[in-house]
Protein backbone atom coordinates (compact mmCIF):
# COMPACT_ATOMS: atom_id res chain seq x y z
CA UNK A 1 0.00 0.00 0.00
CA UNK A 2 2.09 2.86 -1.23
CA UNK A 3 -0.58 5.32 -2.28
CA UNK A 4 1.31 8.30 -0.94
CA UNK A 5 1.50 11.54 -2.83
CA UNK A 6 4.63 13.58 -2.94
CA UNK A 7 3.32 16.97 -1.97
CA UNK A 8 5.57 19.72 -3.12
CA UNK A 9 5.30 23.04 -1.37
CA UNK A 10 3.06 25.04 -3.68
CA UNK A 11 3.91 28.48 -2.29
CA UNK A 12 7.00 30.34 -3.39
CA UNK A 13 9.50 27.80 -4.68
CA UNK A 14 12.26 29.03 -2.43
CA UNK A 15 10.39 27.90 0.71
CA UNK A 16 10.41 24.19 -0.13
CA UNK A 17 13.84 23.14 1.05
CA UNK A 18 13.69 25.39 4.10
CA UNK A 19 10.37 23.93 5.19
CA UNK A 20 11.75 20.42 4.79
CA UNK A 21 14.75 21.34 6.87
CA UNK A 22 12.61 22.73 9.69
CA UNK A 23 10.53 19.56 9.87
CA UNK A 24 7.31 21.49 9.24
CA UNK A 25 6.78 19.59 6.03
CA UNK A 26 5.43 16.04 5.96
CA UNK A 27 4.05 13.83 3.26
CA UNK A 28 0.25 13.49 3.40
CA UNK A 29 -2.03 10.59 2.56
CA UNK A 30 -4.55 11.51 -0.14
CA UNK A 31 -8.03 12.40 1.11
CA UNK A 32 -9.67 9.28 -0.35
CA UNK A 33 -7.16 6.97 1.33
CA UNK A 34 -9.09 6.29 4.59
CA UNK A 35 -12.22 5.35 2.65
CA UNK A 36 -10.30 3.10 0.27
CA UNK A 37 -8.57 1.45 3.20
CA UNK A 38 -11.88 0.88 5.00
CA UNK A 39 -13.43 -0.65 1.86
CA UNK A 40 -10.33 -2.82 1.45
CA UNK A 41 -10.54 -4.02 5.07
CA UNK A 42 -14.23 -4.87 4.66
CA UNK A 43 -13.63 -6.85 1.46
CA UNK A 44 -10.65 -8.75 2.83
CA UNK A 45 -12.34 -9.61 6.15
CA UNK A 46 -15.64 -10.55 4.50
CA UNK A 47 -13.76 -12.74 2.02
CA UNK A 48 -11.82 -14.47 4.81
CA UNK A 49 -14.99 -15.18 6.80
CA UNK A 50 -16.68 -16.46 3.65
CA UNK A 51 -13.82 -18.84 2.92
CA UNK A 52 -14.05 -20.15 6.48
CA UNK A 53 -17.79 -20.58 5.88
CA UNK A 54 -18.80 -18.44 8.87
CA UNK A 55 -20.03 -15.24 7.22
CA UNK A 56 -22.15 -13.00 9.48
CA UNK A 57 -22.31 -9.19 9.19
CA UNK A 58 -21.70 -8.39 12.87
CA UNK A 59 -18.34 -10.16 13.41
CA UNK A 60 -17.23 -9.03 9.94
CA UNK A 61 -17.97 -5.39 10.85
CA UNK A 62 -16.19 -5.70 14.20
CA UNK A 63 -13.07 -7.37 12.80
CA UNK A 64 -12.96 -5.03 9.80
CA UNK A 65 -13.22 -2.04 12.12
CA UNK A 66 -10.30 -3.27 14.25
CA UNK A 67 -8.26 -4.07 11.14
CA UNK A 68 -8.96 -0.60 9.76
CA UNK A 69 -7.87 1.13 12.99
CA UNK A 70 -4.65 -0.89 13.16
CA UNK A 71 -3.74 -0.43 9.50
CA UNK A 72 -4.55 3.30 9.28
CA UNK A 73 -2.39 3.95 12.34
CA UNK A 74 0.47 1.86 10.89
CA UNK A 75 0.30 3.38 7.41
CA UNK A 76 -0.01 6.91 8.72
CA UNK A 77 2.89 6.42 11.11
CA UNK A 78 5.16 5.22 8.29
CA UNK A 79 4.09 7.68 5.59
CA UNK A 80 3.12 10.72 7.64
CA UNK A 81 4.26 11.30 11.20
CA UNK A 82 3.32 10.20 14.72
CA UNK A 83 1.02 13.09 15.44
CA UNK A 84 -1.05 12.51 12.29
CA UNK A 85 -1.15 8.78 13.02
CA UNK A 86 -2.56 9.49 16.47
CA UNK A 87 -5.08 11.90 14.94
CA UNK A 88 -6.25 9.33 12.39
CA UNK A 89 -6.44 6.57 14.99
CA UNK A 90 -8.49 8.65 17.42
CA UNK A 91 -10.73 9.94 14.62
CA UNK A 92 -11.38 6.31 13.69
CA UNK A 93 -12.16 5.35 17.29
CA UNK A 94 -14.58 8.27 17.65
CA UNK A 95 -16.43 7.23 14.49
CA UNK A 96 -16.56 3.61 15.70
CA UNK A 97 -18.05 4.70 19.03
CA UNK A 98 -20.58 6.83 17.19
CA UNK A 99 -21.63 3.86 15.07
CA UNK A 100 -21.85 1.60 18.14
CA UNK A 101 -24.07 4.19 19.81
CA UNK A 102 -26.30 4.47 16.75
CA UNK A 103 -26.79 0.71 16.28
CA UNK A 104 -29.32 0.12 19.09
CA UNK A 105 -31.26 3.25 18.22
CA UNK A 106 -31.61 2.50 14.52
CA UNK A 107 -32.25 -1.18 15.20
CA UNK A 108 -34.99 -0.35 17.71
CA UNK A 109 -36.73 2.09 15.39
CA UNK A 110 -36.46 -0.28 12.44
CA UNK A 111 -37.81 -3.25 14.42
CA UNK A 112 -40.76 -1.31 15.83
CA UNK A 113 -41.52 0.07 12.39
CA UNK A 114 -41.35 -3.33 10.66
CA UNK A 115 -43.50 -5.18 13.20
CA UNK A 116 -45.76 -2.27 14.14
CA UNK A 117 -46.76 -1.33 10.61
CA UNK A 118 -48.73 -4.60 10.20
CA UNK A 119 -51.60 -3.41 12.36
CA UNK A 120 -50.92 0.32 12.27
CA UNK A 121 -53.76 1.88 10.29
CA UNK A 122 -56.61 4.34 10.69
CA UNK A 123 -58.87 1.62 12.07
CA UNK A 124 -56.34 0.77 14.78
CA UNK A 125 -55.97 4.44 15.68
CA UNK A 126 -59.67 5.17 15.78
CA UNK A 127 -61.30 2.34 17.79
CA UNK A 128 -61.02 1.21 21.40
CA UNK A 129 -60.86 -2.29 22.88
CA UNK A 130 -64.40 -2.06 24.21
CA UNK A 131 -66.13 -5.42 23.75
CA UNK A 132 -63.16 -6.95 21.98
CA UNK A 133 -62.44 -10.49 23.18
CA UNK A 134 -58.88 -11.82 22.73
CA UNK A 135 -59.60 -14.09 19.80
CA UNK A 136 -61.19 -11.28 17.76
CA UNK A 137 -59.18 -9.73 14.94
CA UNK A 138 -60.36 -6.25 15.96
CA UNK A 139 -59.83 -3.46 18.45
CA UNK A 140 -57.51 -0.51 18.55
CA UNK A 141 -55.65 2.01 20.56
CA UNK A 142 -57.88 5.09 20.47
CA UNK A 143 -58.83 4.91 24.15
CA UNK A 144 -55.17 4.60 25.12
CA UNK A 145 -54.21 7.63 23.01
CA UNK A 146 -56.99 9.63 24.68
CA UNK A 147 -55.88 8.41 28.10
CA UNK A 148 -52.22 9.20 27.48
CA UNK A 149 -53.04 12.69 26.23
CA UNK A 150 -55.38 13.41 29.17
CA UNK A 151 -53.04 12.01 31.84
CA UNK A 152 -49.87 13.68 30.53
CA UNK A 153 -51.84 16.85 29.81
CA UNK A 154 -53.06 17.06 33.41
CA UNK A 155 -49.58 16.12 34.67
CA UNK A 156 -48.09 18.97 32.59
CA UNK A 157 -50.73 21.40 33.81
CA UNK A 158 -49.71 20.54 37.40
CA UNK A 159 -45.94 20.36 36.85
CA UNK A 160 -45.28 23.44 34.74
CA UNK A 161 -46.54 26.13 37.15
CA UNK A 162 -45.03 24.39 40.18
CA UNK A 163 -41.73 23.62 38.47
CA UNK A 164 -41.34 26.97 36.75
CA UNK A 165 -42.12 28.97 39.87
CA UNK A 166 -39.72 26.83 41.92
CA UNK A 167 -37.03 27.52 39.34
CA UNK A 168 -37.80 31.26 39.42
CA UNK A 169 -37.56 31.19 43.22
CA UNK A 170 -34.26 29.32 43.21
CA UNK A 171 -32.64 31.48 40.53
CA UNK A 172 -34.08 34.93 41.24
CA UNK A 173 -35.05 35.08 44.90
CA UNK A 174 -33.56 32.15 46.81
CA UNK A 175 -30.89 32.84 49.41
CA UNK A 176 -29.06 30.69 51.93
CA UNK A 177 -30.42 27.56 53.58
CA UNK A 178 -33.88 27.39 52.04
CA UNK A 179 -32.50 27.64 48.51
CA UNK A 180 -29.91 24.95 49.25
CA UNK A 181 -32.56 22.69 50.76
CA UNK A 182 -34.86 23.10 47.75
CA UNK A 183 -32.04 22.42 45.29
CA UNK A 184 -31.04 19.34 47.28
CA UNK A 185 -34.54 17.91 47.46
CA UNK A 186 -35.16 18.58 43.79
CA UNK A 187 -32.01 16.59 43.06
CA UNK A 188 -33.21 13.79 45.31
CA UNK A 189 -36.62 13.82 43.63
CA UNK A 190 -34.97 13.45 40.22
CA UNK A 191 -33.75 10.05 41.38
CA UNK A 192 -37.08 8.74 42.70
CA UNK A 193 -37.91 5.41 40.99
CA UNK A 194 -41.16 5.80 39.08
CA UNK A 195 -42.83 2.88 40.90
CA UNK A 196 -42.27 4.70 44.19
CA UNK A 197 -44.04 7.77 42.82
CA UNK A 198 -46.92 5.45 41.88
CA UNK A 199 -47.01 3.91 45.36
CA UNK A 200 -47.01 7.36 46.93
CA UNK A 201 -50.15 8.30 45.02
CA UNK A 202 -51.77 4.93 45.74
CA UNK A 203 -51.22 5.54 49.45
CA UNK A 204 -52.57 9.08 49.13
CA UNK A 205 -55.66 7.85 47.27
CA UNK A 206 -56.33 5.17 49.88
CA UNK A 207 -56.14 7.81 52.61
CA UNK A 208 -58.43 10.17 50.74
CA UNK A 209 -60.92 7.90 48.96
CA UNK A 210 -60.40 4.43 50.39
CA UNK A 211 -58.90 1.39 48.66
CA UNK A 212 -59.61 0.35 45.09
CA UNK A 213 -60.00 3.80 43.61
CA UNK A 214 -57.97 4.22 40.46
CA UNK A 215 -58.42 7.02 37.97
CA UNK A 216 -56.63 9.25 35.49
CA UNK A 217 -56.09 12.06 37.98
CA UNK A 218 -54.14 9.74 40.28
CA UNK A 219 -51.97 8.76 37.30
CA UNK A 220 -51.43 12.40 36.39
CA UNK A 221 -50.33 13.23 39.94
CA UNK A 222 -47.92 10.28 39.98
CA UNK A 223 -46.44 11.50 36.69
CA UNK A 224 -46.18 15.08 37.92
CA UNK A 225 -44.17 13.83 40.92
CA UNK A 226 -41.70 12.54 38.33
CA UNK A 227 -41.98 15.52 36.06
CA UNK A 228 -41.66 18.45 38.49
CA UNK A 229 -37.97 17.91 39.35
CA UNK A 230 -37.06 17.60 35.66
CA UNK A 231 -38.92 20.81 34.87
CA UNK A 232 -37.26 22.60 37.81
CA UNK A 233 -33.81 21.46 36.77
CA UNK A 234 -34.11 22.39 33.11
CA UNK A 235 -35.86 25.72 33.82
CA UNK A 236 -33.20 26.59 36.38
CA UNK A 237 -30.47 26.11 33.78
CA UNK A 238 -32.37 28.16 31.22
CA UNK A 239 -33.02 31.04 33.64
CA UNK A 240 -29.35 31.11 34.62
CA UNK A 241 -28.44 31.48 30.96
CA UNK A 242 -30.26 34.83 30.80
CA UNK A 243 -27.45 37.40 31.09
CA UNK A 244 -27.46 39.43 34.28
CA UNK A 245 -26.95 42.55 32.17
CA UNK A 246 -30.51 42.27 30.92
CA UNK A 247 -31.86 42.21 34.46
CA UNK A 248 -29.72 45.21 35.37
CA UNK A 249 -30.80 47.05 32.23
CA UNK A 250 -34.38 46.56 33.30
CA UNK A 251 -33.76 47.62 36.91
CA UNK A 252 -31.95 50.72 35.66
CA UNK A 253 -35.12 51.75 33.83
CA UNK A 254 -36.99 51.70 37.13
CA UNK A 255 -38.74 48.38 36.53
CA UNK A 256 -39.56 46.39 39.69
CA UNK A 257 -38.08 42.93 40.12
CA UNK A 258 -41.25 40.93 39.50
CA UNK A 259 -41.96 42.77 36.26
CA UNK A 260 -38.35 42.27 35.22
CA UNK A 261 -38.78 38.53 35.70
CA UNK A 262 -42.15 38.36 33.97
CA UNK A 263 -41.33 40.64 31.05
CA UNK A 264 -37.60 40.30 30.49
CA UNK A 265 -36.22 37.09 32.01
CA UNK A 266 -39.01 34.66 31.09
CA UNK A 267 -39.51 35.92 27.49
CA UNK A 268 -35.76 35.79 26.87
CA UNK A 269 -35.62 32.20 28.11
CA UNK A 270 -38.95 31.05 26.66
CA UNK A 271 -37.49 28.89 23.91
CA UNK A 272 -35.30 26.93 26.31
CA UNK A 273 -38.07 26.68 28.89
CA UNK A 274 -40.49 25.22 26.34
CA UNK A 275 -37.92 22.73 25.09
CA UNK A 276 -37.18 21.65 28.67
CA UNK A 277 -40.86 21.17 29.46
CA UNK A 278 -41.46 19.10 26.33
CA UNK A 279 -38.42 16.94 27.08
CA UNK A 280 -39.76 16.36 30.61
CA UNK A 281 -43.12 15.45 29.09
CA UNK A 282 -41.51 13.03 26.67
CA UNK A 283 -39.70 11.49 29.61
CA UNK A 284 -42.91 10.70 31.55
CA UNK A 285 -45.15 9.82 28.62
CA UNK A 286 -43.64 6.32 28.50
CA UNK A 287 -43.97 5.61 32.23
CA UNK A 288 -45.81 2.35 32.83
CA UNK A 289 -45.44 1.18 36.40
CA UNK A 290 -46.95 4.19 38.19
CA UNK A 291 -49.88 4.23 35.76
CA UNK A 292 -50.67 0.54 36.30
CA UNK A 293 -50.86 1.26 40.03
CA UNK A 294 -52.79 4.51 39.84
CA UNK A 295 -54.84 4.62 36.64
CA UNK A 296 -55.52 0.90 36.53
CA UNK A 297 -55.26 -1.44 33.57
CA UNK A 298 -58.80 -2.74 33.27
CA UNK A 299 -60.20 0.02 31.10
CA UNK A 300 -61.17 -0.84 27.54
CA UNK A 301 -63.57 2.04 26.94
CA UNK A 302 -62.93 5.56 25.70
CA UNK A 303 -62.65 7.63 28.87
CA UNK A 304 -61.60 11.25 28.68
CA UNK A 305 -62.68 12.11 32.24
CA UNK A 306 -59.71 11.93 34.62
CA UNK A 307 -61.91 11.42 37.70
CA UNK A 308 -64.15 8.73 36.23
CA UNK A 309 -62.49 5.42 37.04
CA UNK A 310 -59.75 3.52 35.19
CA UNK A 311 -58.00 5.16 32.28
CA UNK A 312 -55.92 3.30 29.69
CA UNK A 313 -52.67 4.76 28.39
CA UNK A 314 -50.31 3.71 25.61
CA UNK A 315 -47.53 2.18 27.77
CA UNK A 316 -50.03 0.24 29.88
CA UNK A 317 -51.78 -0.88 26.70
CA UNK A 318 -48.48 -2.24 25.43
CA UNK A 319 -47.81 -4.01 28.72
CA UNK A 320 -51.25 -5.56 28.70
CA UNK A 321 -50.90 -6.68 25.08
CA UNK A 322 -47.52 -8.26 25.80
CA UNK A 323 -49.07 -10.20 28.70
CA UNK A 324 -51.81 -11.44 26.35
CA UNK A 325 -49.21 -12.78 23.93
CA UNK A 326 -49.19 -15.99 25.93
CA UNK A 327 -52.80 -16.72 25.01
CA UNK A 328 -53.30 -19.74 22.80
CA UNK A 329 -54.32 -19.70 19.15
CA UNK A 330 -54.81 -16.53 17.16
CA UNK A 331 -55.40 -14.46 20.34
CA UNK A 332 -51.67 -14.44 21.18
CA UNK A 333 -50.70 -13.43 17.64
CA UNK A 334 -53.23 -10.58 17.59
CA UNK A 335 -52.00 -9.35 20.99
CA UNK A 336 -48.42 -9.30 19.71
CA UNK A 337 -49.40 -7.28 16.68
CA UNK A 338 -51.31 -4.85 18.87
CA UNK A 339 -48.30 -4.46 21.18
CA UNK A 340 -45.98 -3.56 18.28
CA UNK A 341 -48.48 -1.20 16.70
CA UNK A 342 -49.09 0.55 20.03
CA UNK A 343 -45.32 0.87 20.54
CA UNK A 344 -45.09 2.48 17.10
CA UNK A 345 -47.91 4.85 18.07
CA UNK A 346 -46.13 5.84 21.28
CA UNK A 347 -42.87 6.50 19.46
CA UNK A 348 -44.70 8.63 16.91
CA UNK A 349 -46.40 10.63 19.67
CA UNK A 350 -43.03 11.28 21.33
CA UNK A 351 -41.47 12.21 17.98
CA UNK A 352 -44.26 14.69 17.33
CA UNK A 353 -43.57 16.23 20.74
CA UNK A 354 -39.87 16.60 19.94
CA UNK A 355 -40.72 18.11 16.58
CA UNK A 356 -42.99 20.58 18.35
CA UNK A 357 -40.16 21.40 20.76
CA UNK A 358 -37.80 22.16 17.89
CA UNK A 359 -40.37 24.33 16.14
CA UNK A 360 -41.21 26.19 19.33
CA UNK A 361 -37.58 26.91 20.15
CA UNK A 362 -36.94 28.11 16.60
CA UNK A 363 -40.05 30.27 16.62
CA UNK A 364 -39.58 31.88 20.03
CA UNK A 365 -35.83 32.31 20.29
CA UNK A 366 -34.62 35.92 19.94
CA UNK A 367 -33.79 36.82 16.36
CA UNK A 368 -31.08 39.19 15.24
CA UNK A 369 -32.47 40.08 11.81
Amino acid at each position, binding site marked *: MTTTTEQTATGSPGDGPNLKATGLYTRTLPPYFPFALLAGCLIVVAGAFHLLGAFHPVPVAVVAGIAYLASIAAVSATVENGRRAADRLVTGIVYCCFIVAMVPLVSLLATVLVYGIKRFDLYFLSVSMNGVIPSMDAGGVYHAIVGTLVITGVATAISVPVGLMTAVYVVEYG*RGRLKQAITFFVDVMTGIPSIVAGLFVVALWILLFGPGNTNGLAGAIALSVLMIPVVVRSSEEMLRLV*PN*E*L*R*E*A*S*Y*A*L*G*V*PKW*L*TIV*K*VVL*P*TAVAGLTTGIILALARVIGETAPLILTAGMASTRINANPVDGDMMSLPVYIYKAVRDMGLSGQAGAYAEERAWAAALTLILVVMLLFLAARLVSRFFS*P*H*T*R
Partner: protein
Amino acid sequence: MAKRIDVSDLNVYYGDFKAVEDVTMTVEPRSVTAFIGSSGCGKSTFLRTLNRMHEVTPGARVQGKVMLDNLDVYDPSVDPVAVRREIGMVFQRANPFPTMSIYDNVIAGAKLNNQRMNKRRADEIVERSLRDANLWEEVKDRLNKPGAGLSGGQQQRLCIARATAVEPTVLLMDEPCSALDPISTLAIEDLIAKLKENYTIVIVTHNMQQAARVSDRTAFFNLAGTGQPGRLIEMGDTNKIFTKPDKKETENYITGRFG
Protein backbone atom coordinates in the same frame (compact mmCIF):
# COMPACT_ATOMS: atom_id res chain seq x y z
CA MET B 1 -34.80 68.94 35.18
CA ALA B 2 -31.17 68.12 35.87
CA LYS B 3 -30.48 67.64 39.56
CA ARG B 4 -27.48 67.98 41.84
CA ILE B 5 -26.10 64.98 43.74
CA ASP B 6 -24.52 65.49 47.16
CA VAL B 7 -22.69 62.55 48.66
CA SER B 8 -21.37 62.68 52.20
CA ASP B 9 -19.25 60.13 54.10
CA LEU B 10 -20.27 57.22 51.92
CA ASN B 11 -18.89 53.76 52.70
CA VAL B 12 -19.74 50.74 50.53
CA TYR B 13 -19.42 47.17 51.76
CA TYR B 14 -19.65 43.77 50.07
CA GLY B 15 -20.48 41.61 53.08
CA ASP B 16 -17.65 42.39 55.51
CA PHE B 17 -15.34 43.77 52.86
CA LYS B 18 -15.20 47.53 52.68
CA ALA B 19 -14.92 48.42 49.00
CA VAL B 20 -15.16 52.21 49.09
CA GLU B 21 -14.38 54.46 52.03
CA ASP B 22 -15.44 57.95 53.07
CA VAL B 23 -16.46 59.53 49.81
CA THR B 24 -17.78 63.04 49.98
CA MET B 25 -18.48 64.87 46.75
CA THR B 26 -20.87 67.07 44.88
CA VAL B 27 -21.95 66.38 41.33
CA GLU B 28 -23.10 69.55 39.60
CA PRO B 29 -26.22 69.59 37.45
CA ARG B 30 -25.98 70.17 33.67
CA SER B 31 -22.38 69.10 33.61
CA VAL B 32 -20.30 66.02 32.98
CA THR B 33 -18.38 64.54 35.88
CA ALA B 34 -15.77 61.89 35.07
CA PHE B 35 -14.52 59.24 37.50
CA ILE B 36 -11.02 58.01 36.74
CA GLY B 37 -8.72 55.62 38.55
CA SER B 38 -7.10 52.22 38.18
CA SER B 39 -9.14 49.01 37.89
CA GLY B 40 -10.75 47.76 41.08
CA CYS B 41 -10.52 51.08 42.91
CA GLY B 42 -14.27 51.30 43.42
CA LYS B 43 -15.33 53.82 40.77
CA SER B 44 -18.03 51.57 39.32
CA THR B 45 -19.11 50.38 42.75
CA PHE B 46 -19.48 53.96 43.89
CA LEU B 47 -21.34 54.88 40.70
CA ARG B 48 -23.81 52.07 41.27
CA THR B 49 -24.58 53.26 44.80
CA LEU B 50 -25.83 56.58 43.38
CA ASN B 51 -28.99 54.94 41.99
CA ARG B 52 -29.02 51.99 44.40
CA MET B 53 -28.09 49.52 41.66
CA HIS B 54 -25.52 47.93 43.99
CA GLU B 55 -28.43 46.45 45.96
CA VAL B 56 -28.86 43.95 43.12
CA THR B 57 -25.57 42.35 44.22
CA PRO B 58 -26.15 40.04 47.21
CA GLY B 59 -24.42 41.28 50.36
CA ALA B 60 -23.77 44.82 49.16
CA ARG B 61 -24.70 47.62 51.56
CA VAL B 62 -24.02 51.28 52.12
CA GLN B 63 -23.40 53.68 54.99
CA GLY B 64 -23.64 57.41 54.50
CA LYS B 65 -25.82 59.82 52.67
CA VAL B 66 -26.69 60.49 49.05
CA MET B 67 -28.90 63.51 48.35
CA LEU B 68 -30.57 64.09 45.01
CA ASP B 69 -31.48 67.76 45.37
CA ASN B 70 -33.65 67.49 48.48
CA LEU B 71 -34.36 63.78 48.31
CA ASP B 72 -32.40 61.45 50.57
CA VAL B 73 -31.84 58.48 48.25
CA TYR B 74 -31.24 56.10 51.17
CA ASP B 75 -34.20 57.18 53.26
CA PRO B 76 -36.04 54.00 54.36
CA SER B 77 -39.28 55.30 52.88
CA VAL B 78 -37.70 55.80 49.46
CA ASP B 79 -38.36 53.06 46.91
CA PRO B 80 -35.18 52.05 45.04
CA VAL B 81 -37.29 51.45 41.93
CA ALA B 82 -38.39 55.10 41.99
CA VAL B 83 -34.77 56.23 42.49
CA ARG B 84 -33.74 54.32 39.38
CA ARG B 85 -36.46 56.03 37.39
CA GLU B 86 -34.88 59.37 38.39
CA ILE B 87 -31.30 58.26 37.84
CA GLY B 88 -30.79 56.31 34.62
CA MET B 89 -27.83 54.13 33.83
CA VAL B 90 -25.85 53.03 30.78
CA PHE B 91 -23.62 49.98 31.12
CA GLN B 92 -20.21 48.95 29.90
CA ARG B 93 -21.60 46.34 27.53
CA ALA B 94 -24.52 47.33 25.37
CA ASN B 95 -27.50 45.32 26.56
CA PRO B 96 -30.56 45.83 24.37
CA PHE B 97 -33.40 43.43 25.15
CA PRO B 98 -33.01 40.59 22.65
CA THR B 99 -36.73 39.83 22.52
CA MET B 100 -37.67 43.37 21.52
CA SER B 101 -37.53 45.43 18.34
CA ILE B 102 -35.56 48.69 18.17
CA TYR B 103 -38.80 50.60 18.70
CA ASP B 104 -39.81 48.52 21.74
CA ASN B 105 -36.32 48.78 23.20
CA VAL B 106 -36.56 52.57 23.23
CA ILE B 107 -39.89 52.63 25.04
CA ALA B 108 -38.97 49.61 27.19
CA GLY B 109 -39.09 51.74 30.35
CA ALA B 110 -42.80 52.40 29.82
CA LYS B 111 -43.61 49.04 28.28
CA LEU B 112 -42.05 46.95 31.04
CA ASN B 113 -43.85 49.02 33.65
CA ASN B 114 -47.18 48.33 31.93
CA GLN B 115 -47.73 52.02 31.28
CA ARG B 116 -50.38 52.62 28.69
CA MET B 117 -49.59 55.25 26.12
CA ASN B 118 -51.18 55.99 22.79
CA LYS B 119 -49.37 55.31 19.55
CA ARG B 120 -48.75 59.02 18.74
CA ARG B 121 -47.10 59.67 22.09
CA ALA B 122 -44.98 56.51 21.83
CA ASP B 123 -43.88 57.45 18.30
CA GLU B 124 -42.91 60.91 19.56
CA ILE B 125 -40.85 59.53 22.44
CA VAL B 126 -39.11 57.01 20.20
CA GLU B 127 -38.21 59.61 17.60
CA ARG B 128 -37.06 62.20 20.13
CA SER B 129 -34.94 59.72 22.10
CA LEU B 130 -33.36 58.26 18.99
CA ARG B 131 -32.64 61.73 17.62
CA ASP B 132 -31.10 62.68 20.97
CA ALA B 133 -28.93 59.58 20.73
CA ASN B 134 -27.83 60.43 17.15
CA LEU B 135 -29.30 57.13 15.99
CA TRP B 136 -32.54 58.16 14.30
CA GLU B 137 -31.16 58.54 10.77
CA GLU B 138 -29.52 55.12 10.92
CA VAL B 139 -32.51 53.12 12.15
CA LYS B 140 -35.65 55.04 11.17
CA ASP B 141 -36.41 52.59 8.34
CA ARG B 142 -36.05 49.47 10.42
CA LEU B 143 -37.63 50.31 13.77
CA ASN B 144 -39.38 46.95 13.86
CA LYS B 145 -36.19 44.92 13.42
CA PRO B 146 -34.60 43.37 16.52
CA GLY B 147 -32.29 45.62 18.52
CA ALA B 148 -29.71 42.86 18.76
CA GLY B 149 -29.10 43.12 15.01
CA LEU B 150 -27.41 46.54 15.29
CA SER B 151 -23.65 47.04 15.47
CA GLY B 152 -21.96 47.40 18.88
CA GLY B 153 -21.79 51.20 18.70
CA GLN B 154 -25.39 51.47 17.51
CA GLN B 155 -26.52 49.14 20.30
CA GLN B 156 -24.83 51.34 22.87
CA ARG B 157 -26.53 54.43 21.46
CA LEU B 158 -29.80 52.49 21.50
CA CYS B 159 -29.22 51.83 25.20
CA ILE B 160 -28.62 55.54 25.77
CA ALA B 161 -31.84 56.32 23.91
CA ARG B 162 -33.62 53.77 26.09
CA ALA B 163 -32.22 55.41 29.23
CA THR B 164 -33.20 58.93 28.17
CA ALA B 165 -36.69 57.88 27.03
CA VAL B 166 -37.85 57.58 30.65
CA GLU B 167 -36.68 61.20 31.18
CA PRO B 168 -34.39 60.75 34.17
CA THR B 169 -32.72 63.74 35.78
CA VAL B 170 -29.30 62.12 36.08
CA LEU B 171 -27.55 59.73 33.69
CA LEU B 172 -24.85 57.41 35.01
CA MET B 173 -22.49 55.85 32.45
CA ASP B 174 -20.25 52.97 33.43
CA GLU B 175 -17.42 52.88 30.87
CA PRO B 176 -19.86 53.31 27.98
CA CYS B 177 -17.17 53.33 25.28
CA SER B 178 -14.76 50.68 26.49
CA ALA B 179 -16.05 48.08 24.01
CA LEU B 180 -16.37 50.44 21.06
CA ASP B 181 -14.22 51.51 18.11
CA PRO B 182 -12.97 55.13 17.87
CA ILE B 183 -15.73 56.23 15.48
CA SER B 184 -18.53 54.97 17.72
CA THR B 185 -16.70 56.42 20.71
CA LEU B 186 -16.66 59.79 19.02
CA ALA B 187 -20.40 59.51 18.29
CA ILE B 188 -21.07 58.81 21.95
CA GLU B 189 -18.82 61.62 23.16
CA ASP B 190 -20.68 64.05 20.89
CA LEU B 191 -23.87 62.69 22.34
CA ILE B 192 -22.66 63.24 25.90
CA ALA B 193 -21.79 66.85 25.06
CA LYS B 194 -25.32 67.32 23.72
CA LEU B 195 -27.05 65.55 26.61
CA LYS B 196 -25.35 67.61 29.30
CA GLU B 197 -27.56 70.57 28.38
CA ASN B 198 -30.45 68.72 30.00
CA TYR B 199 -28.98 66.08 32.26
CA THR B 200 -26.52 65.62 35.05
CA ILE B 201 -24.03 63.14 33.65
CA VAL B 202 -21.55 60.98 35.54
CA ILE B 203 -19.19 58.86 33.47
CA VAL B 204 -16.69 56.25 34.59
CA THR B 205 -13.83 55.88 32.14
CA HIS B 206 -10.41 54.30 31.82
CA ASN B 207 -9.58 56.52 28.92
CA MET B 208 -7.97 59.70 30.26
CA GLN B 209 -8.15 61.51 26.96
CA GLN B 210 -11.85 60.83 27.01
CA ALA B 211 -12.18 62.20 30.54
CA ALA B 212 -10.26 65.30 29.47
CA ARG B 213 -12.39 65.71 26.32
CA VAL B 214 -15.89 65.25 27.67
CA SER B 215 -15.92 66.17 31.34
CA ASP B 216 -16.21 69.45 33.19
CA ARG B 217 -15.11 68.02 36.51
CA THR B 218 -13.00 64.97 37.27
CA ALA B 219 -12.77 62.78 40.35
CA PHE B 220 -9.73 60.56 40.87
CA PHE B 221 -10.16 57.35 42.90
CA ASN B 222 -7.37 55.15 44.15
CA LEU B 223 -6.67 52.21 46.44
CA ALA B 224 -4.50 52.66 49.51
CA GLY B 225 -3.11 49.16 48.79
CA THR B 226 -4.28 45.66 47.89
CA GLY B 227 -7.19 44.58 50.07
CA GLN B 228 -7.74 48.19 51.16
CA PRO B 229 -10.89 50.12 50.30
CA GLY B 230 -10.91 52.59 47.43
CA ARG B 231 -10.89 56.30 48.25
CA LEU B 232 -11.69 59.53 46.51
CA ILE B 233 -8.26 61.17 46.27
CA GLU B 234 -9.07 64.40 44.57
CA MET B 235 -11.88 66.10 42.73
CA GLY B 236 -11.89 69.33 40.82
CA ASP B 237 -12.24 71.05 37.44
CA THR B 238 -11.00 68.77 34.71
CA ASN B 239 -8.50 71.37 33.52
CA LYS B 240 -6.98 71.67 36.94
CA ILE B 241 -6.84 67.89 37.58
CA PHE B 242 -5.10 67.31 34.27
CA THR B 243 -2.68 70.25 34.45
CA LYS B 244 -1.78 70.93 38.07
CA PRO B 245 -3.40 68.48 40.47
CA ASP B 246 -2.99 69.07 44.20
CA LYS B 247 -2.00 65.52 45.06
CA LYS B 248 1.14 63.70 43.98
CA GLU B 249 -0.83 60.44 43.44
CA THR B 250 -3.13 62.11 40.94
CA GLU B 251 -0.22 63.51 39.02
CA ASN B 252 1.46 60.11 38.92
CA TYR B 253 -1.67 58.47 37.59
CA ILE B 254 -2.37 61.14 34.99
CA THR B 255 1.17 61.11 33.68
CA GLY B 256 1.16 57.32 33.59
CA ARG B 257 3.86 56.84 36.19
CA PHE B 258 2.02 54.03 37.95
CA GLY B 259 -0.79 51.63 37.27
